[in-house]
């Protein structure tokens, strides 16, 4: 199921807001507590290294690419990506393909899921981080309750990262897809 894709926002405004929010996120207590590491790719894109909190977990870490094409009218575009030199023939920081070591497996929660190959409008297939704090959620036919929707001014990209972090910190996190499907 899909929904119309909204028009991108003015890139200069998006870059200014996104840059401010990235700086605030990077300086936050939450970033320190969760050991998030930020790598700015360009004014509209950042990659954040995340990892499960549980030291008894498999020790994997992941990279989440956030984009500001529709920010902050909508949440950031969001994908788990593979780092440079780990993408094979793909461009650096490309979305991690199905069964990749760079894609976590999280058993579906009521509020979060990772679809390895979602069928998007137009016939394309790609990763979907399915939660109301990602842009892709809003172009795939979801209808969140009012209290679940992204709200400009209330939410920042931290909301996206905390949902991903919470999913990785739960027992429903099963490890890297690459480890489960070698």
């Amino acid at each position, binding site marked *: 199921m899909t929904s119309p894709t909204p028009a991108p926002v003015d890139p200069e405004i998006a870059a200014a807001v996104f840059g401010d929010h990235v700086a*605030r996120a990077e300086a936050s*207590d939450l970033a320190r507590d969760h050991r998030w590491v930020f790598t700015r790719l360009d004014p509209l894109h950042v990659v954040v290294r995340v990892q499960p909190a549980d030291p008894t977990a498999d020790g994997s870490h992941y990279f989440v690419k956030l984009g500001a094409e529709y920010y902050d009218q909508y949440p950031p575009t969001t994908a788990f990506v593979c780092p440079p030199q780990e993408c094979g023939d793909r461009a650096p920081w490309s979305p991690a393909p199905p069964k990749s070591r760079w894609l976590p497996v999280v058993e579906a929660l009521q509020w979060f899921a990772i679809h390895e190959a979602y069928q998007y409008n137009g016939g394309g297939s790609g990763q979907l981080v399915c939660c109301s*704090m990602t842009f892709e959620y809003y172009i795939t036919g979801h209808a969140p309750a009012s209290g*679940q929707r992204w709200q400009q001014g209330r939410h920042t990209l931290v*909301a996206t990262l*905390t949902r991903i972090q919470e999913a990785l910190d739960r027992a429903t996190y099963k490890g890297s897809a690459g480890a489960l499907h070698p």
Partner: protein
Amino acid sequence: MAPNSELTGAADATHDGTTVGANAKPDHERQVTIDNKDSGDTIKLRQSVSDTIGSIIDAMYADFRQTREQEDRLQCRGNGEDVFQFSALPLAQYLDQGHCPDLHWSFVGGTGGA
């Protein structure tokens, strides 16, 4: 922002605060720290032990400039215990009952998913 609060996160990464630390408060005051998992802000509220949890929650919403929504969650960061259920308790009683000794809470709004 309420006069008895301090906002960190954002551009302030030191978190030292400009006031005395939690352990140095007068006996009748405690510091409540609240992480906002929607925005990344962290606030520190100085509250009297006679204040109710509900009044502290009201101060939190005022600081975050938000109104309460049905799916909001406020939990003790250490043990995940819901804080809203204790709205009627004075802070002193909340602590005496051992609910969240470090008074560090996490706030988050609702999330839709699959």
